[in-house]
């Protein structure tokens, strides 16, 4: 009933809307019957056992894999239309920078692609230079990726994702390969960026504490086939500080999610 209602309204005010979406690879069902509405400006984290379809879900939303059945809409558009309008951006686990381009040139890449074909590229309020400053890389504009640390490379990737001012930011374990201190630092930075830009974020992680620390909602997926196990609201105050993780409320959420994860 909810689904048909949002359909009729054209769900323009929903950042991402999945209606009974399934993804199949041959005979294998990676995602089964996912229905979700993600409100604009929300920060969702996605948690689940490995291989349950977290990446597949982001790839479904970002038009990299088609749904076998069901529909996916982004701000009321098809995923393809949203992709062409650069409504969303993707941050991969490894930064996926082009090694021959400087940090600045990597951030500028989305602005170059499509320009010659006369595609209107949405240009954000911030220049690539300002974005590098926002992620704390002022002065390293001309550095090549191999001259930067893993954390710095990931920050360049985030700046690149922000350059077209996406309304939806998809992140697939972006800090999964980083050490804990760098990860903490980037978590705080990401929350600042989220607050400043007001973008919607879908963030895949395999860390329970990261999912609670960042998310307003934690989407728990279960595997075989991948489906929604539960959506847990995280009622923790914003802005969040590292010390939050030592509070009883935080640990209660973590314990609850750990329990859910064990059931998967």
């Amino acid at each position, binding site marked *: 009933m909810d689904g048909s209602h949002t359909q009729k309204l054209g769900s323009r005010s929903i950042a991402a809307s999945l209606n009974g979406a399934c993804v199949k690879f041959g005979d294998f069902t990676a995602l089964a019957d996912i229905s979700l509405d993600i409100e604009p400006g929300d920060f969702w984290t996605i948690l689940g056992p490995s291989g349950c379809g977290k990446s597949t879900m982001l790839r479904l939303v970002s038009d*990299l894999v088609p749904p076998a059945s069901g529909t996916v809409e982004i701000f009321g558009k098809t995923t393809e239309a949203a992709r*062409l309008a650069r409504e969303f951006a993707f941050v991969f686990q*490894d930064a*996926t920078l082009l090694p*021959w381009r400087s940090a600045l040139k990597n951030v500028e890449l989305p602005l170059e692609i499509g320009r010659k074909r006369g595609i209107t590229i949405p240009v954000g309020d911030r220049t690539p230079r300002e974005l590098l400053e926002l992620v704390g890389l002022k002065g390293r504009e001309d550095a090549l990726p191999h001259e930067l640390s893993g954390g710095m490379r990931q920050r360049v990737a985030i700046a690149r994702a922000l350059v077209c001012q996406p309304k939806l930011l998809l992140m697939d374990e972006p800090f999964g390969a980083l050490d804990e201190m760098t990860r903490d630092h980037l978590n705080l930075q990401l929350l600042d960026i989220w607050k400043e830009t007001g973008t919607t974020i879908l963030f895949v992680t395999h860390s329970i504490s990261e999912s609670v620390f960042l998310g307003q909602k934690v989407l728990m997926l279960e595997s075989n086939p991948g489906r929604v196990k539960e959506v847990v609201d995280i009622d923790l105050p914003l802005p969040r500080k590292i010390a939050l993780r030592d509070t009883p409320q935080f640990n209660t959420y973590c314990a609850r999610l750990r329990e859910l994860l064990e059931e998967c």
Partner: protein
Amino acid sequence: MSVSEAAVGETSPQNRLSEQSRSRLMNIAIPLGTAVALLLTWQLGVRLFNVPKYIAPAPTDILAVFRDEFPLLMRNFWPTFIESLAGFFIGNMAAILIAIAFVHSRLVERAFFPIAVFINTIPILAIAPILVLIFGPGMTAKVVIAALICFFPTLVNMVRGLQSVSPQALELARILSASKSEVFWKIRLPSSLPFLFSALKIAATTCVIGAIVGEWIGANVGLGALIIESTFNFRSPLLYATVFVSSGLSVFLFVSVTIAEKLIIRW
């Protein structure tokens, strides 16, 4: 005692720097010293055992050729240089373009790759006379042979290079709705450059071999022709000098490619 230990354990930056430059100096000095020692042994051996000049000339005899016959050497150097360079450009260019076609169309690859492999299996010494028959005794045949010898390694490396793009980079391109030509110019081609340069370094030396082999079969100028001529006339010092010029040409081309690589590939 602890003081002296500390002094031993610690190396000041200046010390380390001079150590570094010393080790670099050693890197040059050791092979150079070995080469000089070998030349001296050669010189002494030839003189001591009275080896006839036409069997094995002494290094000084070869130096004398460089002094006396320099115009002759140069007259034969230039044709080989031009043939090698032209063969290098044509062979590698063809390989690059065909590699691009292969990567864009599996059909083209399936149609032509077996033929490329077949051509590569024919020994260059066997195919060279055929090419000289077809193209005549001029420079063309030598250029074609030099090009042919460069072709295959570059083709294989370039195909690998163009395919070396990570799947994630391609997904990034897709999310940005990049066109096929944007993917090619902005991602595939730059990714292939390290592979291309390792092939070009091979080609830099083989193209000279190709040109010389071509000249052996039918030419009256060029380093290859000079090698044949000086062999048949027992002019061994001239033969050795020509061989040195030939390897000098290879080294020159190799170093040029290496410098270009250093300038272009900074990642």
